[in-house]
């Protein structure tokens, strides 16, 4: 079950929210739409669900066109055979857990016996057996989340859309539910489209991350690829933390490229695009003694102790650099440090 969008555009009045997006979300995998609020990720999800009408373009689910601008076609949401987990969970408060979970089956006209059996199976699957008669309003946030998941699973729709499903849970439960959603998806092989603004959540849960910015997909790929090789400054800074360095010298001599950062010289393998700057992740730096040659000299201006790691910010000739260390060496404000790094950890971003 792939989901395809072609030139998908949506604007609210004069405000464009999606700008001609063309993507294919792969069958049986978790695709995460990641971006800051207002980037168009929720709008894209709602367009696919049929809750918003796109301004232009085409949407196909498993090869079946559910929306197209020309010729005009709009399959209403209830006939798109998708399932969805909403940010508020959208558990119907006037129904029991059983009634909530069985609604997709009742809507499809399934007979009562089958409904009973399927709902109970599904409730067991999400860890809610014995809760069927419970009123939906008596559930905790985590349980409501499970009811919302059960409702998707029972609908036997191969496509599940998730709109920030974990953002209303507290931190620990959120981490547990991430793993649970991923586990369920692996077992049941649904095609999941997952919207979030939380980069850590995106990296944990995604097979492929689609980073959205201003209504466009800025970069896509597996989490590792996006983190390790951001193509743009925005991607580098949105996903994880990045030191962006624009004060550098590029030296081309006898066919070998090198980059000089203050007194540190690193060889550069690739030729950058026009206007590209350097991006180095904080954990890629190694701190050494300050008086060595061929290191970037710096002075610590701020330190942060985060338990499992130490972070410090150093003033260097190329600007402020943030460094993350796992070592137990104590850092104090005012200390001088030397910084060095491997050539392969330098990225060019635009």
């Amino acid at each position, binding site marked *: 079950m792939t989901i395809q969008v072609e030139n998908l555009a949506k604007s609210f009045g004069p405000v464009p929210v999606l700008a001609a997006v063309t993507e294919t979300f792969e069958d049986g995998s978790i695709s995460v739409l990641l971006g800051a609020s207002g980037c168009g990720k929720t709008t894209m999800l709602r367009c696919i669900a049929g*809750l918003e009408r796109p301004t232009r373009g085409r949407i196909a689910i498993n090869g079946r066109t559910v929306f197209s601008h020309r010729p005009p076609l*709009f399959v*209403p949401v209830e006939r798109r055979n998708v*399932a969805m987990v909403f940010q508020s969970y959208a558990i119907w408060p006037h129904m029991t857990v059983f009634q909530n979970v069985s609604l997709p089956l009742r*809507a499809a006209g399934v007979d009562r016996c089958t409904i009973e059996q399927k709902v109970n199976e599904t409730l067991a699957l999400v860890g809610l057996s014995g809760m069927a008669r419970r009123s939906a309003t008596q559930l905790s946030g985590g349980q409501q989340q499970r009811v919302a998941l059960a409702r998707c699973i029972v609908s036997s729709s191969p496509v599940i859309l998730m709109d920030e499903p974990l953002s209303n849970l507290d931190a620990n439960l959120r981490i547990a539910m991430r793993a649970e959603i991923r586990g369920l998806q692996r077992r049941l092989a649904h095609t999941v489209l997952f919207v979030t603004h939380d980069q850590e959540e995106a990296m944990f849960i995604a097979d492929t991350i689609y980073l959205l910015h201003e209504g466009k997909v800025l970069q896509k790929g597996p989490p590792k690829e996006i983190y390790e090789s951001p193509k743009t400054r925005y991607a580098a800074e949105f996903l994880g933390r990045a030191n962006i360095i624009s004060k550098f010298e590029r030296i081309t001599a006898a066919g070998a490229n090198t980059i000089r950062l203050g007194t540190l010289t690193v060889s550069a393998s690739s030729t950058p695009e026009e206007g590209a700057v350097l991006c180095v992740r904080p954990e890629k730096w190694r701190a050494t003694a300050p008086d060595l040659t061929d290191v970037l000299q710096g002075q610590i201006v701020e330190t942060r102790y985060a338990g499992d790691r130490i972070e410090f910010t150093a003033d260097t000739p190329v600007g402020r650099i943030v460094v993350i260390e796992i070592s137990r060496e104590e850092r104090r404000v005012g200390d001088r440090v030397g910084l060095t790094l491997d050539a392969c950890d330098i990225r060019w971003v635009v």
Partner: protein
Amino acid sequence: MSHVADTAWPRALPQALGLTSLGALIGILVLAPLVMILTRAVFDPNAARTLDARSLVAVLTGWIYWSALASTVAVALCSALLACVVGTALAWIFVRTTTFGRTVLEQIAQLPIFIPPFVGAVAWALLLAPRVGAINRILAALGIPIELDLYTHAGMAWVMGIYLAPYVMMIVAAALRSIDPSLEEAAQVCGLTKLQTALRVTAPLLAPAILSGAVLAFTIAVGLFGTPIVLGWSRQILLLTSRIWIASQATPPDYGIMAVLSLYLIVLSILATAAQRSFLAGRSYVTVTGKGFRPRVIELGPWGALTFAAGCLYVILAIAAPLVVLVAAALSPYTWAGQYSIANLRASLDSDDVWSTMTTSVLISTAAATLAAALGLAISWVVSRTRLPGRQLLEYLVLLPISVPGIAFGVGVMLVWIDVPFAVYGTASIILLAFIGRFTAYAVRSVSASLVQIHPELEESARVFGYGPVRTFARITFPLILPSVLASWILLFSFFMTELSMVILLYSESSRMFSILAFEVWNVGDFSRLAALSLLQTAIGLTLAVTLKVVFRQKAL
């Protein structure tokens, strides 16, 4: 990113048709009466399209109309002032003090809203009429040489004021509950005394609520018919509403005068609202949110007895004393006969007239409440769940009659249907049309408030999982808003059962409602039978009010 489902376009045609027919309906029910008042005031209906200032000139040069206007403004202002003082004091006592029984007292103090104004006036006439009023008789029996006279401007303002106080009380109490207590705590931390805090922080924050309570009370007072006619008739203290009724009794009825006087009423309520707007301009207190806070409660100590007494005094004046005097009068064969018997009450109520008018009232009220609730539901849904253009205008129009006094609206409805070639005027249907046009606004407000509470995702998720729009409405939306629909039905039904100011203009032999019967009995001066009928009306009103409070836990308005 709007959360409202974009359902506008796939079913554009049926939706457009629906909106158009809703618009046409509101046009006929709401807009036409208001337009007719305006046109009839300055146009001659017989000579088409010629300006005719006769009625306008008659009103502007007639001393009786200036006197009616002055009396109306004076009585309405005084009663609004009284309602403000009493209502604000009660709100403060019930919300901010530890007065014994304040929760129960607050509930009881809201009930006078459900006592018809006509009944309140009748009861107070029995209590305070010159010479024959119960209190005056007691004073005379005790040898106290004071005679209180209710049949004066002050008397009218008194009765109106105590029955309007609950409206102010409810608005101010809600405001008191929504003020963040930390605002007052901050003032005290900054060194202000309790009194300074009350004057410099609490009072200014409350001012908008008190003012809107005052404006509401003034608007209602201006349009009241039952109270001023009962209390003013014997000395011919006639307010605008009484003059409208008198003009309607002329043969042929003087429609021009009625239209001009209705315009007066509308202008008065517009002026009140405008005054409120200009006062509030630039004073938006965002700190007073819709959120409920636990208010700061003042420990009164020995003063608690005083506030308890004040609360009880209000309940006695507005409910207990009127009820007692009505029961006493109803049990007597004639006023103050000194003999009480249940047989008298039974005799008063056991008549064909009572039965037939009661049946008419129940039928008309049921039909009107059902239609108004259904129309209100449809409009609320269109306004909050679609993106159809023009929906805001629709909502604005339907809410418009809230600030139009009932009797003026009744005049408008009368003028709309009087010259149409089919029989509406003179049948029960004109009362239905007037009720629906004037009161659908209340259903819209109540249902809209509860629709806003329902997260659109609850409906969207039902759509995602396979329910179409109709099933989503029937199985998800409707069950969730049902309590507010039922509550507004009961509220409307209770209004309609005792409505007098519109019905008095629109009824005919086939549509005599119970309130008309009571009015006729008052007209012939049979106070004992009148008391019995008034008791019945009060019983209906209070029963419905208690149903609303207990079953739906709903505020009265």
